[in-house]
């Protein structure tokens, strides 16, 4: 997945922050983390509210990476 052919690149969007995005890709796919009924929250079994929580996880991680890797407009 790397780009070995790059001669010194004038531009890149490589950033260690991008690794943070592995979290929202992996975590929702680990069923043992959420595949149970209790505890319930407002009547929602754990299976459901935990996955709703993962949406928030996705939003937070993507927002952080966006803020940290944002191109500053050169004037």
């Amino acid at each position, binding site marked *: *997945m790397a780009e070995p052919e790059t001669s010194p690149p004038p531009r890149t969007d490589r950033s260690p922050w991008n690794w943070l995005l592995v979290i929202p890709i992996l975590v929702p796919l680990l069923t043992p983390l959420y595949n149970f009924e209790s505890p319930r929250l407002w009547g929602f079994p754990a299976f459901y509210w935990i996955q709703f929580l993962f949406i928030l996880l996705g939003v937070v991680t993507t927002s952080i990476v966006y803020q940290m890797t944002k191109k500053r407009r050169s004037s």
Partner: protein
Amino acid sequence: MSEHITEIIVFALLFLLVSGMGFVAARWRAPKDMAHLDEWGLGGRSFGGWITWFLVGGDLYTAYTFVAVPALMFGAGAAGFFAVPYTIVIYPLFFLILIRLWSVSHRHGFVTPADFVRRRFDSPTLALLVAITGIVATMPYIALQLIGIEAVLKTMGMTGESLLARHAPIIIAFAILAAYTYQSGLRAPALIAFVKDTLIYIVILVAVIYLPYKLGGWGSIFDDAQAKFDASPAPGDGLTLNANNQLQYVTLALGSALALFLYPHSITGVLASKNRNVIKRNMSALPAYSFLLGLLALLGFAAISAGVKPLPGAREGTVDSNTVVPLLFDQQFPSWFAGIAFAAIGIGALVPAAIMSIAAANLFTRNIYKEYIRKDATHAQEAGVAKIVSLVVKVGAVACIIFLDPQFSIDLQLIGGVIILQTAPAVALGLFTRWMHRGALIAGWVAGMGLGFWMLWNIANPATKRAHFGGSAFALEKFGFDTTKTIYVGFVAVAVNLLIAVVVTLILRAMKTPDGVDGTEPDDYYADEGDPRLEAERKSPDELASST
């Protein structure tokens, strides 16, 4: 029909409103020259944050999703909730991968993923395969949008005796859709998406507050669903997953996410945005729709609790489970509100259907017409061909629904998800590396396609008494494994595709087979709006005009 008259009036009024907007859209953010594929097919590549949010949201979360996901929850429980992890996983993937496609497309003026493959791997054949895969996968997806509308029409009692009477409303709706898409291109769905999504948000938020209030709270709704699944003899259902369908759940979520971002219509939506920041920002805002989809999925349980009985299906003795959510609204809400909900679903079908037909038209124009039929086509000719193809595609979709069993479209859509995944090595990995040989990518595509079809053919569904194409969950024991676990077909097929591509690459490299010339530079994958190098190298004046 008479007891549904309020619903029908509200539905028709909202439908007329968006149709008007569809035609006016041609003048919205009016281009200097509409006779250019960048304008008609990509909205001038100029959409900012808000428009992109509504457009891509309206594009990815289709009417079919809105009726089929709750229907799946209604029937199988937890397994239907895969839609939530699926739509969480997709955005980081967009953020990391599709952004590179935007940059390289911006730099080189690509309109379709096949354009990129053509230049990157110097192979018209591989590009043609990618284009055909995209068109074939998209067609049944458009037909499914019609199934979404039909579920609503059926609930409103608009079912005639003859073939023509039963389908008249859909034919009219699609004729109007075809007319304004022809005229306004991608601007039409972009403008209509504002109305569609606003309606959907209102409807769902009201529903998730009002329904539990009426049905005794979410706790009791989940208990009712639990009771239904406990009583049913089916082994796979329940409020949580069991030991056998967890692998299926995960691979389906991941496979669907990978497939969705390869679908031509999602790529069209992304390429229409004006710069990299718009895309990145949207990837953290689009999950708002996932939240909505999760809530909507749970309406499947609300329907169980409310005792909804789905309407009969097209064939004797079957039920049309897609009518579950429309019936829920019909029975639990005042008719004017049900009318708004139905309009939200109906209009929800138009936005993706328009974008899909535009995406398919772009593929045909750029990768078949310009590549093989008329190499020296001008921009105006390209736009003209694309407009006509978009009409043909819609006529085809309507014909599918009228003349074929709707189940056939659902089967095709199932296959569509599996086959579009087979373009992943060329399109997605191709954005990062050119290590794989063009010949090997073709070999991998063939292998993945073959295996995918074979697996789908061998999936039986005892519930619907079908021997073939019964679903996407493949029993691993058919591969000779001693297990009762199931896995998503597309996932296995693309893994084999990739394996073959790697092995054949090694062979072709050893044989020193010519590999063509890469027409892109590493730097292109980071290009952004207002790039001085890009502006200086713009080839023609109208490309300059469209970038401003």
